[in-house]
Protein backbone atom coordinates (compact mmCIF):
# COMPACT_ATOMS: atom_id res chain seq x y z
CA UNK A 1 0.00 0.00 0.00
CA UNK A 2 1.04 3.59 -0.40
CA UNK A 3 3.33 5.02 2.25
CA UNK A 4 1.44 7.21 4.68
CA UNK A 5 3.38 9.48 7.00
CA UNK A 6 2.58 8.73 10.62
CA UNK A 7 2.69 11.74 12.94
CA UNK A 8 4.26 10.91 16.28
CA UNK A 9 2.67 12.80 19.15
CA UNK A 10 3.12 12.81 22.91
CA UNK A 11 0.08 12.82 25.18
CA UNK A 12 -1.34 14.88 26.77
CA UNK A 13 -1.58 16.85 23.52
CA UNK A 14 -0.93 20.57 23.33
CA UNK A 15 -3.47 22.97 21.85
CA UNK A 16 -1.03 23.41 18.94
CA UNK A 17 -1.06 19.63 18.33
CA UNK A 18 -4.84 19.70 18.09
CA UNK A 19 -4.82 22.64 15.69
CA UNK A 20 -2.27 20.89 13.46
CA UNK A 21 -4.29 17.70 12.97
CA UNK A 22 -6.61 17.06 10.05
CA UNK A 23 -9.20 14.33 9.52
CA UNK A 24 -7.51 11.39 7.81
CA UNK A 25 -4.10 11.96 9.44
CA UNK A 26 -2.57 8.85 10.98
CA UNK A 27 -0.97 9.44 14.37
CA UNK A 28 1.06 7.40 16.81
CA UNK A 29 0.32 8.43 20.39
CA UNK A 30 2.69 7.94 23.33
CA UNK A 31 2.30 9.15 26.89
CA UNK A 32 -0.63 9.23 29.29
CA UNK A 33 -4.33 8.73 28.52
CA UNK A 34 -7.35 7.91 30.70
CA UNK A 35 -10.03 5.31 30.04
CA UNK A 36 -13.65 6.21 30.58
CA UNK A 37 -16.92 4.78 29.32
CA UNK A 38 -20.65 4.90 30.03
CA UNK A 39 -20.88 4.67 33.81
CA UNK A 40 -17.79 6.82 34.49
CA UNK A 41 -19.07 9.49 32.07
CA UNK A 42 -22.38 9.60 33.90
CA UNK A 43 -20.60 10.23 37.21
CA UNK A 44 -18.18 12.81 35.79
CA UNK A 45 -20.95 14.77 34.11
CA UNK A 46 -23.14 14.63 37.23
CA UNK A 47 -20.19 16.13 39.14
CA UNK A 48 -19.85 18.93 36.60
CA UNK A 49 -23.59 19.60 36.58
CA UNK A 50 -23.65 19.90 40.37
CA UNK A 51 -20.69 22.28 40.23
CA UNK A 52 -18.64 20.01 42.50
CA UNK A 53 -14.85 19.77 42.12
CA UNK A 54 -13.76 17.07 39.65
CA UNK A 55 -12.23 14.06 41.42
CA UNK A 56 -9.35 13.99 38.91
CA UNK A 57 -8.00 16.73 36.67
CA UNK A 58 -8.86 15.83 33.08
CA UNK A 59 -8.27 19.29 31.61
CA UNK A 60 -6.03 19.00 28.57
CA UNK A 61 -6.25 15.19 28.66
CA UNK A 62 -7.49 12.49 26.29
CA UNK A 63 -10.20 10.03 27.29
CA UNK A 64 -10.03 6.59 25.70
CA UNK A 65 -13.46 4.96 25.48
CA UNK A 66 -12.49 1.51 26.68
CA UNK A 67 -13.25 -1.08 29.32
CA UNK A 68 -10.35 -3.53 29.46
CA UNK A 69 -10.23 -7.24 30.17
CA UNK A 70 -8.48 -8.20 33.41
CA UNK A 71 -4.67 -8.37 33.15
CA UNK A 72 -3.08 -11.81 33.04
CA UNK A 73 -0.16 -12.25 35.44
CA UNK A 74 2.91 -10.42 34.08
CA UNK A 75 0.87 -8.10 31.86
CA UNK A 76 -0.20 -4.52 32.68
CA UNK A 77 -3.63 -5.01 31.12
CA UNK A 78 -5.83 -7.39 29.15
CA UNK A 79 -7.36 -6.75 25.73
CA UNK A 80 -8.29 -3.10 25.50
CA UNK A 81 -9.83 -1.96 22.22
CA UNK A 82 -12.13 1.02 21.82
CA UNK A 83 -15.85 0.89 22.55
CA UNK A 84 -18.59 2.60 20.51
CA UNK A 85 -18.14 6.34 21.03
CA UNK A 86 -21.70 7.35 20.13
CA UNK A 87 -22.95 6.15 23.52
CA UNK A 88 -20.86 8.89 25.14
CA UNK A 89 -22.34 11.61 22.88
CA UNK A 90 -24.85 12.85 25.50
CA UNK A 91 -21.98 13.51 27.95
CA UNK A 92 -19.17 14.74 25.68
CA UNK A 93 -20.09 18.42 25.05
CA UNK A 94 -20.02 19.19 28.78
CA UNK A 95 -16.65 17.47 29.21
CA UNK A 96 -15.26 19.46 26.28
CA UNK A 97 -16.53 22.68 27.83
CA UNK A 98 -14.79 21.61 31.05
CA UNK A 99 -11.49 21.31 29.18
CA UNK A 100 -11.07 17.79 27.81
CA UNK A 101 -8.76 17.98 24.78
CA UNK A 102 -9.88 14.92 22.91
CA UNK A 103 -11.26 11.43 22.75
CA UNK A 104 -10.19 8.07 21.36
CA UNK A 105 -12.90 5.60 20.37
CA UNK A 106 -14.61 4.02 17.43
CA UNK A 107 -17.40 5.10 15.14
CA UNK A 108 -19.12 8.37 14.25
CA UNK A 109 -20.21 11.13 16.66
CA UNK A 110 -23.36 13.21 16.96
CA UNK A 111 -23.51 16.67 15.42
CA UNK A 112 -23.54 18.38 18.83
CA UNK A 113 -20.26 16.65 19.72
CA UNK A 114 -18.62 17.87 16.51
CA UNK A 115 -19.88 21.41 17.19
CA UNK A 116 -18.49 21.31 20.73
CA UNK A 117 -15.15 20.01 19.39
CA UNK A 118 -14.98 23.04 17.08
CA UNK A 119 -15.98 25.43 19.84
CA UNK A 120 -13.59 24.15 22.50
CA UNK A 121 -10.66 22.99 20.35
CA UNK A 122 -10.75 19.20 20.59
CA UNK A 123 -9.90 16.24 18.38
CA UNK A 124 -11.43 12.77 18.02
CA UNK A 125 -9.28 9.77 17.15
CA UNK A 126 -10.42 6.34 15.94
CA UNK A 127 -8.50 3.34 17.24
CA UNK A 128 -9.00 0.00 15.48
CA UNK A 129 -12.31 -1.41 16.68
CA UNK A 130 -12.14 -5.09 17.53
CA UNK A 131 -8.35 -5.21 17.86
CA UNK A 132 -8.13 -5.41 21.64
CA UNK A 133 -5.21 -7.84 21.83
CA UNK A 134 -3.14 -5.79 19.37
CA UNK A 135 -3.82 -2.53 21.23
CA UNK A 136 -2.93 -4.13 24.59
CA UNK A 137 0.63 -4.41 23.28
CA UNK A 138 0.79 -0.56 23.20
CA UNK A 139 -0.15 -0.29 26.88
CA UNK A 140 2.94 -0.27 29.10
CA UNK A 141 1.29 0.62 32.41
CA UNK A 142 -2.22 0.69 33.82
CA UNK A 143 -3.53 1.91 37.13
CA UNK A 144 -7.09 2.43 38.35
CA UNK A 145 -7.35 6.07 39.45
CA UNK A 146 -11.10 6.51 39.97
CA UNK A 147 -14.39 4.66 40.40
CA UNK A 148 -12.84 1.27 41.16
CA UNK A 149 -16.31 -0.01 42.12
CA UNK A 150 -17.32 0.16 38.46
CA UNK A 151 -15.09 -2.81 37.60
CA UNK A 152 -14.24 -2.68 33.88
CA UNK A 153 -15.86 0.76 33.73
CA UNK A 154 -13.42 2.27 36.25
CA UNK A 155 -11.13 5.08 35.07
CA UNK A 156 -7.65 3.74 34.35
CA UNK A 157 -4.59 5.87 33.78
CA UNK A 158 -2.71 4.22 30.93
CA UNK A 159 0.90 4.68 29.87
CA UNK A 160 0.92 4.03 26.12
CA UNK A 161 3.58 3.71 23.44
CA UNK A 162 2.82 4.04 19.77
CA UNK A 163 -0.94 3.65 19.85
CA UNK A 164 -1.75 4.19 16.19
CA UNK A 165 -5.02 6.00 15.49
CA UNK A 166 -6.71 7.86 12.67
CA UNK A 167 -7.85 11.45 13.15
CA UNK A 168 -11.53 10.70 12.56
CA UNK A 169 -12.89 14.20 13.27
CA UNK A 170 -10.64 17.25 13.55
CA UNK A 171 -11.23 20.48 15.41
CA UNK A 172 -12.40 22.17 12.21
CA UNK A 173 -15.28 19.71 11.86
CA UNK A 174 -13.78 17.66 9.01
CA UNK A 175 -15.15 14.15 9.39
CA UNK A 176 -13.40 11.09 7.98
CA UNK A 177 -16.55 8.98 8.46
CA UNK A 178 -18.39 11.22 5.99
CA UNK A 179 -15.42 11.71 3.66
CA UNK A 180 -14.60 7.99 3.49
CA UNK A 181 -18.19 6.86 3.05
CA UNK A 182 -18.89 9.31 0.22
CA UNK A 183 -15.66 8.33 -1.52
CA UNK A 184 -16.59 4.64 -1.61
CA UNK A 185 -20.37 4.62 -1.81
CA UNK A 186 -21.79 3.29 -5.08
CA UNK A 187 -25.09 4.64 -6.36
CA UNK A 188 -27.15 2.56 -8.70
CA UNK A 189 -26.97 5.00 -11.62
CA UNK A 190 -23.19 4.62 -11.69
CA UNK A 191 -23.34 0.87 -11.14
CA UNK A 192 -22.00 -0.62 -14.36
CA UNK A 193 -23.60 -4.06 -13.89
Amino acid sequence: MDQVAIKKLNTPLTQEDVLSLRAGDIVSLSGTIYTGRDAAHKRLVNTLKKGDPMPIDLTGQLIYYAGPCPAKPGHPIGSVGPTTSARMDPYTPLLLEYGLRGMIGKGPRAKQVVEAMKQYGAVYFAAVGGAGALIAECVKSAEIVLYEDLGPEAIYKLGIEDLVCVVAIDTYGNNQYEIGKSEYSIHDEEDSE
Partner: protein
Amino acid sequence: MREISADIITKAVETLCLQAAYDLGADVEKLIREALAKEESAFGIRILENIVNNIEIARREEMPICQDTGLAAMFIEIGQDLHIKDGFITDAINQGVRQGYEKGYLRKSVLADPLFSRKNTGDNTPAMIHYDIVPGDGLHIAILPKGGGSEGVSALKMLRPADGVEGVKKFVMDTILEAGGKPCPPIIVGIGIGGSMDKVAFLAKKALTREAGTHHSDPRYASLEQTLLKEINKTGIGPNGLGGRNTALAVHIEDYPTHMACLPVAVNVNCHAARYKEINL
Protein backbone atom coordinates in the same frame (compact mmCIF):
# COMPACT_ATOMS: atom_id res chain seq x y z
CA MET B 1 -32.03 -43.61 29.31
CA ARG B 2 -28.70 -41.87 28.79
CA GLU B 3 -27.48 -39.79 31.71
CA ILE B 4 -25.04 -36.92 31.86
CA SER B 5 -23.69 -35.17 34.93
CA ALA B 6 -24.20 -31.43 35.36
CA ASP B 7 -20.48 -31.16 36.15
CA ILE B 8 -19.62 -32.27 32.62
CA ILE B 9 -21.84 -29.50 31.25
CA THR B 10 -20.16 -26.91 33.47
CA LYS B 11 -16.70 -27.98 32.35
CA ALA B 12 -17.71 -27.95 28.68
CA VAL B 13 -19.18 -24.45 28.95
CA GLU B 14 -16.04 -23.17 30.70
CA THR B 15 -13.90 -24.49 27.85
CA LEU B 16 -16.20 -23.05 25.19
CA CYS B 17 -15.99 -19.58 26.81
CA LEU B 18 -12.20 -19.60 26.55
CA GLN B 19 -12.05 -21.03 23.02
CA ALA B 20 -14.58 -18.50 21.75
CA ALA B 21 -12.77 -15.53 23.31
CA TYR B 22 -9.29 -16.43 22.02
CA ASP B 23 -9.73 -18.35 18.79
CA LEU B 24 -11.80 -16.84 15.98
CA GLY B 25 -13.51 -19.43 13.78
CA ALA B 26 -11.85 -20.37 10.48
CA ASP B 27 -15.01 -19.43 8.57
CA VAL B 28 -14.98 -15.81 9.80
CA GLU B 29 -11.21 -15.47 9.45
CA LYS B 30 -11.42 -16.66 5.84
CA LEU B 31 -14.01 -13.97 5.03
CA ILE B 32 -11.87 -11.28 6.70
CA ARG B 33 -8.80 -12.32 4.67
CA GLU B 34 -10.89 -12.29 1.49
CA ALA B 35 -12.13 -8.79 2.39
CA LEU B 36 -8.53 -7.63 2.84
CA ALA B 37 -7.62 -8.98 -0.61
CA LYS B 38 -10.58 -7.09 -2.15
CA GLU B 39 -10.37 -3.82 -0.21
CA GLU B 40 -9.43 -0.67 -2.13
CA SER B 41 -9.42 2.02 0.54
CA ALA B 42 -6.08 2.74 2.23
CA PHE B 43 -7.77 3.02 5.65
CA GLY B 44 -9.74 -0.12 4.96
CA ILE B 45 -6.61 -2.08 4.10
CA ARG B 46 -4.78 -0.80 7.17
CA ILE B 47 -7.70 -1.69 9.45
CA LEU B 48 -8.18 -5.16 7.98
CA GLU B 49 -4.45 -5.84 8.31
CA ASN B 50 -4.66 -4.84 11.97
CA ILE B 51 -7.70 -7.07 12.43
CA VAL B 52 -5.83 -10.05 10.95
CA ASN B 53 -2.80 -9.32 13.19
CA ASN B 54 -5.11 -9.11 16.17
CA ILE B 55 -6.66 -12.51 15.40
CA GLU B 56 -3.19 -14.06 15.28
CA ILE B 57 -2.00 -12.38 18.51
CA ALA B 58 -5.17 -13.43 20.33
CA ARG B 59 -4.75 -17.06 19.30
CA ARG B 60 -1.02 -17.19 20.05
CA GLU B 61 -1.09 -15.30 23.37
CA GLU B 62 -4.47 -16.62 24.51
CA MET B 63 -5.75 -13.05 24.80
CA PRO B 64 -9.37 -12.14 24.07
CA ILE B 65 -9.79 -11.09 20.42
CA CYS B 66 -11.91 -8.21 21.69
CA GLN B 67 -12.08 -6.76 25.21
CA ASP B 68 -15.85 -7.02 24.90
CA THR B 69 -16.11 -10.70 25.65
CA GLY B 70 -19.82 -10.19 25.58
CA LEU B 71 -23.03 -11.51 26.93
CA ALA B 72 -22.83 -15.31 26.76
CA ALA B 73 -25.62 -16.22 24.33
CA MET B 74 -26.02 -19.99 24.72
CA PHE B 75 -27.89 -22.31 22.37
CA ILE B 76 -28.71 -25.65 23.94
CA GLU B 77 -30.27 -28.59 22.13
CA ILE B 78 -31.29 -31.35 24.54
CA GLY B 79 -32.38 -34.73 23.37
CA GLN B 80 -35.72 -35.65 24.97
CA ASP B 81 -34.26 -39.01 26.03
CA LEU B 82 -31.34 -37.48 27.94
CA HIS B 83 -31.39 -37.21 31.71
CA ILE B 84 -29.24 -34.61 33.46
CA LYS B 85 -28.17 -35.72 36.92
CA ASP B 86 -26.40 -34.08 39.89
CA GLY B 87 -27.77 -30.61 39.27
CA PHE B 88 -29.98 -28.23 37.32
CA ILE B 89 -28.84 -27.54 33.77
CA THR B 90 -29.25 -23.73 33.95
CA ASP B 91 -27.13 -23.59 37.10
CA ALA B 92 -24.53 -25.82 35.44
CA ILE B 93 -24.33 -23.54 32.40
CA ASN B 94 -24.05 -20.38 34.49
CA GLN B 95 -21.36 -22.00 36.62
CA GLY B 96 -19.44 -22.79 33.44
CA VAL B 97 -19.70 -19.17 32.31
CA ARG B 98 -18.61 -17.98 35.76
CA GLN B 99 -15.55 -20.24 35.73
CA GLY B 100 -14.64 -19.55 32.12
CA TYR B 101 -14.80 -15.76 32.43
CA GLU B 102 -12.79 -15.83 35.66
CA LYS B 103 -10.10 -18.32 34.60
CA GLY B 104 -9.74 -16.82 31.13
CA TYR B 105 -9.29 -13.21 32.30
CA LEU B 106 -12.34 -12.30 30.25
CA ARG B 107 -14.24 -9.10 30.90
CA LYS B 108 -17.39 -9.30 32.99
CA SER B 109 -19.93 -7.10 31.23
CA VAL B 110 -23.27 -8.12 32.74
CA LEU B 111 -25.26 -5.69 34.89
CA ALA B 112 -27.77 -7.07 37.40
CA ASP B 113 -30.34 -4.35 36.84
CA PRO B 114 -30.67 -2.74 33.42
CA LEU B 115 -32.25 0.56 34.43
CA PHE B 116 -31.71 1.62 38.02
CA SER B 117 -28.61 0.28 39.79
CA ARG B 118 -26.79 -0.98 36.66
CA LYS B 119 -24.45 -2.82 39.00
CA ASN B 120 -22.06 -5.39 37.53
CA THR B 121 -22.77 -8.97 38.64
CA GLY B 122 -19.01 -9.55 38.65
CA ASP B 123 -19.02 -12.96 36.98
CA ASN B 124 -20.69 -12.35 33.60
CA THR B 125 -23.79 -14.31 34.60
CA PRO B 126 -26.58 -14.82 33.89
CA ALA B 127 -25.98 -16.24 30.43
CA MET B 128 -28.71 -15.68 27.83
CA ILE B 129 -29.80 -19.29 27.40
CA HIS B 130 -31.99 -20.66 24.60
CA TYR B 131 -33.20 -24.24 25.05
CA ASP B 132 -34.52 -26.46 22.33
CA ILE B 133 -35.83 -30.00 22.91
CA VAL B 134 -34.82 -32.32 20.08
CA PRO B 135 -35.26 -36.04 19.33
CA GLY B 136 -32.71 -38.51 20.68
CA ASP B 137 -30.42 -38.41 23.70
CA GLY B 138 -27.73 -35.97 22.57
CA LEU B 139 -26.70 -32.62 24.02
CA HIS B 140 -25.43 -29.82 21.79
CA ILE B 141 -24.05 -26.71 23.48
CA ALA B 142 -23.06 -23.60 21.56
CA ILE B 143 -21.84 -20.20 22.73
CA LEU B 144 -22.02 -16.95 20.82
CA PRO B 145 -20.35 -14.31 23.01
CA LYS B 146 -22.08 -11.15 21.82
CA GLY B 147 -20.52 -7.71 22.06
CA GLY B 148 -22.60 -4.76 23.21
CA GLY B 149 -21.60 -2.30 20.49
CA SER B 150 -23.05 -4.36 17.68
CA GLU B 151 -26.01 -5.50 19.80
CA GLY B 152 -26.81 -1.84 20.43
CA VAL B 153 -27.37 -1.03 16.75
CA SER B 154 -29.64 -4.03 16.19
CA ALA B 155 -33.33 -3.41 15.49
CA LEU B 156 -36.75 -5.01 15.09
CA LYS B 157 -39.82 -3.89 13.18
CA MET B 158 -43.27 -5.33 12.68
CA LEU B 159 -43.81 -4.60 8.98
CA ARG B 160 -47.15 -4.78 7.22
CA PRO B 161 -47.60 -7.72 4.84
CA ALA B 162 -48.03 -5.11 2.06
CA ASP B 163 -44.44 -3.96 2.66
CA GLY B 164 -43.19 -7.23 1.20
CA VAL B 165 -39.64 -7.92 0.05
CA GLU B 166 -38.96 -4.25 -0.64
CA GLY B 167 -40.04 -3.34 2.89
CA VAL B 168 -37.69 -5.95 4.34
CA LYS B 169 -34.80 -4.65 2.23
CA LYS B 170 -35.50 -1.05 3.22
CA PHE B 171 -35.64 -1.86 6.93
CA VAL B 172 -32.37 -3.81 6.76
CA MET B 173 -30.61 -1.05 4.81
CA ASP B 174 -31.95 1.69 7.11
CA THR B 175 -30.64 -0.26 10.11
CA ILE B 176 -27.19 -0.76 8.54
CA LEU B 177 -26.90 2.88 7.44
CA GLU B 178 -27.92 4.09 10.89
CA ALA B 179 -25.34 1.73 12.45
CA GLY B 180 -22.58 3.06 10.16
CA GLY B 181 -19.16 2.67 11.77
CA LYS B 182 -20.50 2.00 15.27
CA PRO B 183 -20.60 -1.82 15.37
CA CYS B 184 -17.01 -2.55 14.14
CA PRO B 185 -17.59 -3.27 10.47
CA PRO B 186 -17.05 -5.39 8.46
CA ILE B 187 -20.07 -6.92 10.12
CA ILE B 188 -22.07 -10.12 9.87
CA VAL B 189 -25.80 -9.44 9.59
CA GLY B 190 -28.27 -11.85 11.14
CA ILE B 191 -31.84 -11.35 9.91
CA GLY B 192 -34.99 -12.96 11.24
CA ILE B 193 -38.15 -12.88 9.14
CA GLY B 194 -41.50 -14.21 10.36
CA GLY B 195 -42.76 -15.73 13.60
CA SER B 196 -43.90 -13.27 16.25
CA MET B 197 -42.23 -10.29 17.87
CA ASP B 198 -40.22 -12.45 20.30
CA LYS B 199 -39.57 -15.27 17.82
CA VAL B 200 -38.16 -12.98 15.13
CA ALA B 201 -35.53 -11.55 17.46
CA PHE B 202 -34.43 -15.07 18.31
CA LEU B 203 -34.27 -15.98 14.61
CA ALA B 204 -31.96 -13.02 13.93
CA LYS B 205 -29.60 -14.14 16.66
CA LYS B 206 -29.85 -17.79 15.58
CA ALA B 207 -28.86 -16.68 12.06
CA LEU B 208 -25.51 -15.55 13.50
CA THR B 209 -24.72 -19.10 14.60
CA ARG B 210 -24.65 -20.34 11.03
CA GLU B 211 -21.25 -21.03 9.42
CA ALA B 212 -20.26 -17.59 8.17
CA GLY B 213 -20.89 -17.00 4.49
CA THR B 214 -23.11 -20.05 3.91
CA HIS B 215 -26.54 -19.52 2.42
CA HIS B 216 -30.16 -20.31 3.24
CA SER B 217 -31.36 -23.62 1.77
CA ASP B 218 -34.32 -21.90 0.03
CA PRO B 219 -32.95 -20.21 -3.12
CA ARG B 220 -35.32 -17.24 -2.71
CA TYR B 221 -33.90 -16.39 0.72
CA ALA B 222 -30.37 -17.21 -0.46
CA SER B 223 -30.81 -14.74 -3.29
CA LEU B 224 -32.08 -12.10 -0.86
CA GLU B 225 -28.99 -12.69 1.30
CA GLN B 226 -26.75 -12.09 -1.71
CA THR B 227 -28.67 -8.99 -2.81
CA LEU B 228 -28.50 -7.47 0.67
CA LEU B 229 -24.78 -8.24 1.01
CA LYS B 230 -24.12 -6.47 -2.26
CA GLU B 231 -26.25 -3.47 -1.29
CA ILE B 232 -24.61 -3.18 2.13
CA ASN B 233 -21.17 -3.23 0.51
CA LYS B 234 -22.23 -0.41 -1.82
CA THR B 235 -22.81 1.95 1.11
CA GLY B 236 -19.11 2.82 1.33
CA ILE B 237 -19.20 2.59 5.15
CA GLY B 238 -16.21 0.25 4.96
CA PRO B 239 -13.95 -1.27 7.63
CA ASN B 240 -14.51 0.52 10.94
CA GLY B 241 -16.69 3.04 9.08
CA LEU B 242 -13.78 5.05 7.67
CA GLY B 243 -14.73 4.31 4.07
CA GLY B 244 -14.22 1.27 1.86
CA ARG B 245 -15.68 -1.63 -0.05
CA ASN B 246 -16.16 -4.10 2.80
CA THR B 247 -18.96 -3.16 5.18
CA ALA B 248 -20.36 -6.69 5.67
CA LEU B 249 -18.73 -10.11 5.45
CA ALA B 250 -21.98 -12.06 5.25
CA VAL B 251 -25.77 -11.83 5.50
CA HIS B 252 -27.68 -14.73 7.05
CA ILE B 253 -31.47 -14.99 7.04
CA GLU B 254 -33.61 -17.33 9.15
CA ASP B 255 -37.33 -17.52 8.41
CA TYR B 256 -40.35 -18.97 10.23
CA PRO B 257 -44.12 -19.20 9.67
CA THR B 258 -46.03 -16.12 10.80
CA HIS B 259 -49.52 -14.73 11.39
CA MET B 260 -51.47 -13.63 8.30
CA ALA B 261 -51.52 -10.05 9.61
CA CYS B 262 -47.78 -9.89 10.27
CA LEU B 263 -44.39 -9.51 8.63
CA PRO B 264 -41.91 -9.30 11.53
CA VAL B 265 -38.28 -8.49 10.69
CA ALA B 266 -35.30 -8.32 13.05
CA VAL B 267 -31.72 -7.38 12.29
CA ASN B 268 -29.05 -8.58 14.72
CA VAL B 269 -25.69 -7.05 13.82
CA ASN B 270 -22.47 -8.85 14.72
CA CYS B 271 -18.99 -7.35 14.60
CA HIS B 272 -16.07 -8.83 12.63
CA ALA B 273 -14.99 -10.55 15.85
CA ALA B 274 -17.92 -12.93 15.29
CA ARG B 275 -17.10 -15.51 17.92
CA TYR B 276 -18.85 -18.88 18.13
CA LYS B 277 -17.94 -22.33 19.48
CA GLU B 278 -19.94 -25.51 19.89
CA ILE B 279 -19.66 -29.03 21.25
CA ASN B 280 -21.68 -32.25 21.28
CA LEU B 281 -21.75 -34.06 24.61
